[in-house]
């Protein structure tokens, strides 16, 4: 047993180092490699982080709904673990999207918040995530909880196209795909990739932890029986 644990810990260290290394490289790229934007100056650098986490926030709900769907078909709780982990990280990314967006807006628009369509639908996305996590915490039985989560995630994911297309369908002040220099585009994609790797690692770790928790709970229930 100890050997397997050591190997595992070794693997974890490698992945963690890789992810940490990528994030550090992204930090360097964002602050030192990317050219300074003409009209906004240094504040624009926030957007490399903001766009990266925003994409992940959308992806998180899609992943949660997809794995939830598989759970409903296969009834294997492992899929629910993926669904819950994806939703938790998606919630984190949605929160970060709103926070970094607000920080950027405080400089660019001189306000922390406005009910622009993109911001409103992004807030709606955050509400969906919060609702998902809240309602799950209210259900005890793992399978019932998995069913509830899957249904909510699947209905919730139907809103994702609305969030994405909000800037194109409605008038608002949120920027719509601005032109970017190749270097900026490169830093953006690298940043998105780094964040995706890092959060992907967290996803794997959290999923493992959820599985461990379900096993321990099952063992405890078995031990409690006289």
């Amino acid at each position, binding site marked *: 047993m100890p050997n397997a644990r050591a190997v595992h810990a070794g693997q974890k260290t490698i992945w963690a180092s890789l992810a940490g290394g990528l994030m550090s490289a992204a930090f360097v790229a964002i602050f030192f490699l990317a050219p300074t934007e003409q009209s906004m100056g240094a504040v624009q650098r926030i957007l490399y982080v903001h766009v990266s986490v925003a994409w992940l926030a959308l992806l998180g709900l899609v992943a949660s709904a997809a794995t939830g769907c598989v759970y409903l078909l296969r009834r294997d709780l492992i899929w629910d673990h993926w669904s819950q982990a994806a939703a938790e990280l998606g919630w984190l990314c949605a929160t970060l999207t709103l926070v970094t967006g607000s920080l950027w807006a405080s400089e660019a628009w001189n306000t922390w918040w406005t009910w622009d369509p993109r911001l409103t639908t992004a807030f709606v996305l955050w509400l969906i995530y919060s609702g998902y996590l809240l*309602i799950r915490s209210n259900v005890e039985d793992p399978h019932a909880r998995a069913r509830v989560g899957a249904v909510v995630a699947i209905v919730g994911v139907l809103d994702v196209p609305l969030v994405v297309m909000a800037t194109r369908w409605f008038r608002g002040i949120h920027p719509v795909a601005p032109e970017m220099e190749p270097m900026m585009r490169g830093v953006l994609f690298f940043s998105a990739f780094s964040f995706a790797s890092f959060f992907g690692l967290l996803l794997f770790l959290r999923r493992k932890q959820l599985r461990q928790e379900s096993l321990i709970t099952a063992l405890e229930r078995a031990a409690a029986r006289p």
Partner: protein
Amino acid sequence: MRSCEFAIEARRLSKTFAGQVVLNNIDLAISAGEAVAIIGPNGSGKTTLLRCLASLLRPSSGEVFWFGKAPRTESQARRLVGTIGHESGLYPHLTVRENLLFAARMCDVSEPSRRVAELLAVGGLLWLAIFFAGIIALDRSFAGERENGCLEGLLFYPVSAAAVYVAKLAVNVAALTCLECVLIPLFVVLSGTPLPTYPGSLVSVVLLGNLGIAAVGTLLSALTSGMRHGTGFLAILALPLVVPVLLSAAEATRLTIAGEFGAEWQRWLQLLGAFAVIFVTAGTVLFEFVVQE
């Protein structure tokens, strides 16, 4: 030579106040359609410059031209450029709606009530009211079945669970419609919104909106009716999920009241219809997973 190319032009504009030079030989040329922002710290002379450009202040030297004409001397030229000052010009003791109506009537806008309703968020208010009142009805969808164990009986019926969902959905749509028969007249009276020119078009918007809200509400109600604090969860969860329906319905309603049935109205109606269809389909498919272990 005076040029007529520029909408606003300043040539060697200077202004001195009691020996203090505020503007020093400013040359400025702004073309029509251009947007220019003048920014600077307090006391840098922004307001002075703007007031000179607006012909409200006489420059110490230099000239200002609007489309080649001098606004200070030619009074007719002052029609060419509009100015908005520091004051908003609104009447604080009137509501926003009353202000807009007043201005509309002063400027001889045709159908002022209708135009004002178009601008105000009456659509959004109405649909939020429908949602919050409707969620109470939706929460009761499965209450009867839960209380006397009838849900299992329904599921034993030799029809698919989806049929139960569709039946519940139909009842809920009817309930929302009855609710609206009271709510909409009340809303019209209290908000002073004019009735739409073609009430029939409002019916289609309302029915589609009901369908969208009820589709999500019925599904979630089945999910939450067994839980403690189920009503709270239903409201919290349903609101963000039906936002696309509420948004499209609100915009479509606004345009219906304003009487504008152009491409924009069609687009909103299509979006509303699309989400209604999507949510009904999702509900029909997912319902059996909700009620069966």
